[in-house]
């Protein structure tokens, strides 16, 4: 009986580890499903976070992606999570991410073009246009930028929000 409950506890711990593993396992392309965004939000709770959503077959997204590589260099403390939302293999997503100078950034990808349920897990009003960027402040407030971003907007937000968050960013 004791062994059984011990095993149950271990099982629960394992499930917890498996769920939180993504944020520790930086560098891999992770499959994005209906539960992934909740995991991302939980992993970065109380920290400012930038989520950039892009698509492999979205021309403006591919043109923009290297800008994010540059922004990451300019703001090495930025918590950045990428979500690829078109059809595409992990290989193709990884190649595009590396090409943009974003290797090592936490990166997720849908296996098929993102569906209604997956979109709703991020934003109930999102109809699928890309790219889009979510600026999530340490207190959980989400600002959505539709289309290609102006890097100065990100820089300003980071300056203000990181200050506000104080020790929120390592």
């Amino acid at each position, binding site marked *: 009986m004791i062994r059984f409950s011990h095993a149950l506890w271990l099982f629960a711990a394992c499930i917890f580890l498996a769920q939180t593993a993504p944020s520790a396992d930086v560098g891999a392309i992770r499959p994005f*499903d209906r539960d992934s965004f909740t995991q991302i939000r939980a992993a970065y709770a109380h920290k400012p976070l930038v989520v950039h959503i892009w*698509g492999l*077959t979205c021309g403006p997204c591919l043109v923009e992606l290297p800008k994010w590589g540059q922004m990451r260099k300019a703001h090495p403390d930025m918590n950045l999570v990428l979500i690829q939302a078109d059809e595409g293999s992990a290989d193709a997503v990884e190649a595009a991410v590396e090409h943009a100078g974003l290797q090592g950034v936490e990166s997720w990808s849908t296996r098929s073009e993102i569906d*209604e349920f997956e979109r709703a897990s991020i934003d109930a009003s999102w109809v699928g*246009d890309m790219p889009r960027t979510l600026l999530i402040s340490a207190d959980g407030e989400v600002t959505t930028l539709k289309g290609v971003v102006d890097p100065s907007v990100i820089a300003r937000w980071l300056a203000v929000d990181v200050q506000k968050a104080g020790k929120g960013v390592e």
Partner: protein
Amino acid sequence: MHRRSIGFILGFCLCPVLGTWAQTNAAPGQAPSNAPAPMHHHAQPEAGDCAGTDLKCATAVTPAFDAHNNLWIAWVAGGAVSVARSTDLGRTFIDATIIGRYGDLIDVGADAKPQLAIDAQGRAVVAYGVFKDKAYDAQVWIARSASIWAKEGPGFGAPRSLSADPASQRFPVLAFTSNGRLFAAWLDKRTVALARKQGRAQAGAALAYAWSDDAGATFSGETIAQDDTCECCRLALAFDARRQPVMVFRAIYDEHERDPAVIVLSSDGKPALQRRVAEDHWVIDGCPHHGPSVAVSSDGALHAAWFTQGNARQGLFYARSENHGQNFSDPIPIGNVARQPGRPSLLASGNNLWLAWKEFDGTHIYIKERHSSDAGRHWTNERIVAETDHAADHPVLIAHDGAVFLSWTTRDQGYRLIQLETT
């Protein structure tokens, strides 16, 4: 016993983590393969879990009837483009044939459905986009069958490139006119590439087209009809009474406004008319991934349905033109704007019109429809035709033998052809 339990549990628990690790480390330097890379999904079974080339794994399906009451469909699944035939209105399919295998390179977004057209003599053409380089430039491939009724099977020939131009081409649409000419249109990047070479910035893509008088064996008169189109939204095609192509598509105005436009192409190859359908002012430097629909009724009216997130209006809209596209009526909102109405499909048969679309309430996806028996002047109230709580294709309306059907595929219920009530 205790040790074994822990070992089992650890193995179970590490599996997802190791799976991700193994997949990532296998990635670099591998050539694209026909088999999609395995990816883990822990939630409900969705499109990503279905890896085969069978119809049950298709996310986008295009239907066409032949003159012998067969329903043919083209679909993409598992990186392959396939066709199959049904003699029982889509309940069962036979003679499934793989046209081509492209692995991850196939352009398979739901707005990029494979195209299928069949003429009265049983000649068929399939068209689709395939990516050809790391910049995600694509090429439109076509495969044709000289007779889908041949005893030995439809016998589609080897796919070949529709255009000889090296620039990127995507989102083909094709259809036969009532006198058997084949018209093909697609989104083409050649003028954008040229502008870039000359140091000019040109947004989006261009609308290109060509004609074939031998059911797709050869095409002639390849022409750029218009620059500044959205590069990632499907094109909509219908013919008017003079067999002129009428196309509705998303165009780019003032650099970043992606609003619906109409073009009528005269048979001598010149655009007869180009107009903006509505001043929505959807400002976005990005991909809406959401194309319109068009139909022409017997009275000559043009009908357009489209989605927008414009400054002037947001949601799904319908408008009609009684002067062949010169002016369109004020846009009428369609569906429940709180439920992401979109993905319209318009169908005209005589002066009867049907409009189907997709809605999502957070837990269910619905296909709804409205019907007009006076060429779009008055419409019935909306009604739900089908629903699912799983991933689902865009709706396609298709007419055959006096009946109108919804053609739809969902992850849980597979492909279905659902007859609409026409009362």
